[in-house]
């Protein structure tokens, strides 16, 4: 194009030159018909030369030379014209010069215009090129911006949106069309709007950058957590022109953080609520975390615990006890241990610890420590162990007792068999003796010769002996478990007269029996139990001497009054033999339950342990001593009250005459209980009143006469239940029904009489 333009200029220049020549020829023809022919040619040559010079022709020097020559010639023509007076020629030449000058000026002006046009075209071309580059950059930038996922928003300084990227649309829901030209804060609800406004004002007032996290709002109303950064930008001259904002979606991160925070809070609540000391210790043995229990037990806030070394938080003795476990845990080994320590508050406890290493890529980052206070469990275990040991002891003891019970049961069985035998023999003896006694009594009424009377006397003595054996056998047969002491004790002399025959019959041949029991002695225990126990002692004594090489084989039973340690009256009974005595080891063990030196089957089966049990049951005791002169069993039992064994009653009972058969039975029962009985309406001095149902006031009046008075009512309770101001009165009245059974009446009367304490029992004369 440049070449084409240059060629055109050359053509124009050639045309201009030809025009100038043509104009010069015309002029010549007009003004110089006879003039020299050199002037137009010279004028053209000068014009062309000047034009070439003006254009910067490379032939400037020759052109200048030519121009100079032409000008010289021209001026020469002018001068010649002037000199020749040819004004016409001179004007013509000057006109030629003016014309040539005009041509040159025109050419110059044309060239200047062309030059400027070329310059303008170059500028335009440059700008076109810049614009193309700018468009290319803008296109590239738009592509980049559209591919950015972050929300990019551009505002002018007034807060109007000038750019709303796809990321912003994705994040907030509004489209570019909706947001362009809109005042950005307008899309926010309060109080976010204020915050955005404040941020824009902050930037407008001079801050270059603004950054923050806040909860934004999506177009659909949902919450969007964003991190926003705004930057004020300027043009090339540095003039602020707008604000570029970039927002990142933090919702997922915020949710994760919230979940993590909630999870951490839950973990904290759980661990704080756990009755355990939980902590996390780093590999440097510094606490990273601890729960509330841990904090409380050490009395140090968690803020101080975290970061402290284990050795700084734990007391020296506790640290010394757990340090080996810490070392193992930090070596990567899970550790479980139990140890006794003293808590920081001074309480000794037993703890169970678990250290779990926190491993990452084979490296121990720390360990989790879980410490449980197992003191209660430990104590419970200890208690359980003690109970178990106690239970085992009990089992052993109970087993021994069961074995003893079995042994006693077997012995009881033998005793029962003996008792049955004795009862049968006693019964048969009674049946036989009664008619014999009848015959003897009949004979006694007859006037017999002296010899016959003597025979009769002998027969009666034999009968009495048999009678005593019968009685003794009955005592032997009595059931120990079903017979109580009763109010009366056992008169020893009377008892001895009944049992001596049976005791003597139980001794081996050649063994004598001697009783030394003074009158007036009585023991507070049942006759049959005394019989059974002493019979065994006598029998043992006899067996000890059976076949023994002793001069005289004799069993002696003695009794004497005594005093117990507390001053209580007692009776001492001795059963002594003249045998060889017992070796010390036998003597030491003779009261043990299973100990026996006898051949089984010979004895009654009641061992010395059971004999001792009988006496202890009635408040007594038994000891044994043995030597060369024989063995003596010494029994101490409480003495019975004289009133208990005498004929005198211990209290007075009034039995209502209105009672029929129940009154009759009550009378005989009360008499058997040792109570004086008055069968009549008088009750003023009675201790016990047996009556039909009576009015309550009368009943209460009787009871009010003494705190220990008792009433047995033969009738339903509803008819005479006492009421009124007599607290505890119900306990003093027994109701047995209108037609009580004998056993029921016996129990009520026994209870009424038994309620009279020893101090209140009194002897009365009827």
């Amino acid at each position, binding site marked *: 194009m440049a070449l084409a333009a240059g060629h055109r200029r050359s053509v124009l220049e050639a045309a201009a030159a030809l025009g100038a020549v043509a104009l010069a020829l015309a002029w010549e023809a007009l003004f110089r018909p006879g003039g020299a022919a050199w002037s137009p040619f010279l004028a053209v040559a000068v014009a062309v030369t000047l034009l070439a010079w003006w254009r910067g022709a490379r032939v400037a020097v020759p052109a200048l030379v030519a121009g100079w020559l032409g000008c010289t010639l021209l001026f020469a023509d002018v001068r010649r014209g002037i000199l020749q007076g040819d004004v016409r020629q001179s004007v013509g030449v000057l006109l030629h010069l003016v014309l040539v000058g005009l041509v040159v000026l025109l050419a110059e002006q044309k060239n200047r215009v062309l030059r400027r046009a070329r310059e303008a075209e170059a500028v335009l071309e440059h700008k076109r090129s810049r614009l193309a580059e700018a468009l290319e950059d803008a296109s590239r930038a738009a592509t980049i911006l559209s591919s950015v996922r972050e929300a990019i928003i551009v505002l002018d300084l007034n807060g109007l949106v000038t750019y709303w990227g796809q990321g912003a649309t994705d994040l907030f829901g509004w489209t570019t069309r909706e947001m362009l030209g809109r005042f950005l804060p307008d899309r926010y609800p309060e109080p976010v709007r204020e915050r955005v406004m404040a941020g824009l004002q902050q930037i407008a007032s001079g801050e270059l950058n603004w950054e923050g996290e806040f909860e934004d709002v999506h177009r659909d109303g949902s919450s969007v957590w964003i991190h926003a950064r705004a930057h004020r930008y300027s043009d090339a001259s540095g003039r602020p022109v707008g604000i570029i904002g970039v927002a990142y979606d933090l919702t997922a991160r915020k949710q994760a953080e919230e979940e993590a925070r909630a999870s951490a809070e839950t973990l904290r609540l759980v661990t704080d609520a756990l009755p355990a000391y939980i902590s996390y210790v780093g590999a440097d043995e510094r606490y990273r975390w601890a729960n509330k229990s841990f904090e409380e037990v050490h009395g140090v806030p968690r803020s101080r615990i975290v970061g402290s070394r284990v050795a700084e938080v734990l007391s020296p003795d506790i640290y010394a006890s757990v340090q080996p476990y810490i070392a193992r845990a930090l070596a990567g080994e899970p550790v479980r241990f139990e140890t006794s320590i003293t808590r920081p508050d001074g309480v000794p406890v037993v703890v169970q610890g678990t250290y779990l290493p926190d491993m990452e890529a084979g490296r121990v980052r720390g360990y989790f420590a879980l410490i449980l206070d197992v003191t209660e469990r430990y104590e419970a275990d200890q208690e359980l162990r003690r109970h178990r040991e106690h239970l085992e002891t009990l089992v052993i003891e109970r087993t021994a007792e069961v074995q003893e019970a079995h042994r006693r049961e077997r012995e009881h069985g033998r005793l029962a068999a003996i008792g049955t035998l004795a009862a049968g023999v006693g*019964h048969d003896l009674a049946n036989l003796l009664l008619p014999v006694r*009848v015959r003897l009594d009949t004979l006694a009424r007859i006037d017999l010769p002296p010899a016959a009377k003597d025979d009769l006397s002998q027969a009666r003595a034999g009968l009495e002996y048999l009678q005593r054996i019968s009685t003794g056998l009955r005592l032997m047969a009595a059931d120990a478990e079903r017979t109580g002491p009763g109010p009366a004790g056992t008169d020893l002399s009377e008892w001895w007269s009944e049992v001596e025959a049976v005791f003597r019959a139980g001794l081996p041949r050649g063994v004598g029996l001697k009783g030394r029991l003074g009158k007036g002695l009585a023991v507070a225990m049942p006759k049959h139990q005394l019989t059974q126990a002493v019979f065994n002692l006598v029998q043992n004594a006899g067996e000890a001497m059976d076949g023994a090489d002793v001069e005289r084989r004799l069993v002696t039973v003695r009794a004497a009054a005594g005093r117990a340690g507390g001053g209580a009256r007692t009776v001492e009974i001795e059963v002594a033999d003249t045998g060889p005595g017992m070796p010390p080891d036998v003597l030491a063990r003779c009261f043990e339950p299973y100990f026996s030196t006898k051949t089984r089957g010979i004895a009654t089966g009641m061992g010395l342990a059971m004999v001792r049990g009988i006496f202890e049951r009635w408040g007594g005791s038994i000891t044994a001593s043995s030597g060369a002169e024989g063995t003596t069993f010494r029994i101490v039992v409480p003495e019975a009250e004289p009133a208990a064994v005498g004929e005198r009653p211990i209290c007075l009972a009034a039995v209502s005459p209105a009672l029929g058969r129940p009154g009759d039975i009550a009378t005989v029962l009360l008499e058997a209980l040792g109570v004086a009985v008055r069968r009549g309406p008088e009750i003023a001095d009675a201790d016990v009143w047996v009556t039909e149902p009576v009015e309550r006031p009368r009943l209460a009046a009787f009871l009010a006469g003494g705190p220990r008075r008792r009433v047995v009512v033969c009738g339903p309770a509803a008819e005479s239940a006492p009421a009124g101001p007599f607290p505890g009165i119900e306990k003093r009245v027994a109701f047995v029904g209108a037609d009580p059974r004998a056993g029921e009446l*016996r129990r009520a009367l026994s209870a009424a009489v038994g309620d009279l304490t020893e101090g209140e029992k009194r002897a009365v004369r009827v």
Partner: protein
Amino acid sequence: METRDGIRVLFVDDNDILGASMGRWMTDAVGMRWLGWTDDLAAARRMLETGRPDVLLLDIDMPRQDTFAFLRWVAEEHPDTRVLMLSGHMRQEYVERALDDGASGYIVKDESLPTIVEFVRRAAAGEVVLSSTARSWVTGPV
């Protein structure tokens, strides 16, 4: 209860020696009228019907015979006849049962004959009697 010709006594026991001896003694006893002795309860029923005894001395342990059932029958059918149990046994349940079934007393056979006669008199007079051995039942465990 006692008639002018004495207390009518009937004796039921399987011991013939005792029966005969008791008869001889009672016959001679002042104020007693001996109605007889039997070892058979059926015969005793007939004798009760005919003799109308004031006191019946009744043994307990009689082979193949329920003396307590007989006692209840007597108490029911002959309420005017006092029954005294006369036994060689001293058992608590026997005493209770005898009293519950209507007996007027319980005499163990270790008592002397005069004592037995005295018990008969007291029973005929309306008392309830227990011999000394039988009284041990009262003092037993409640």
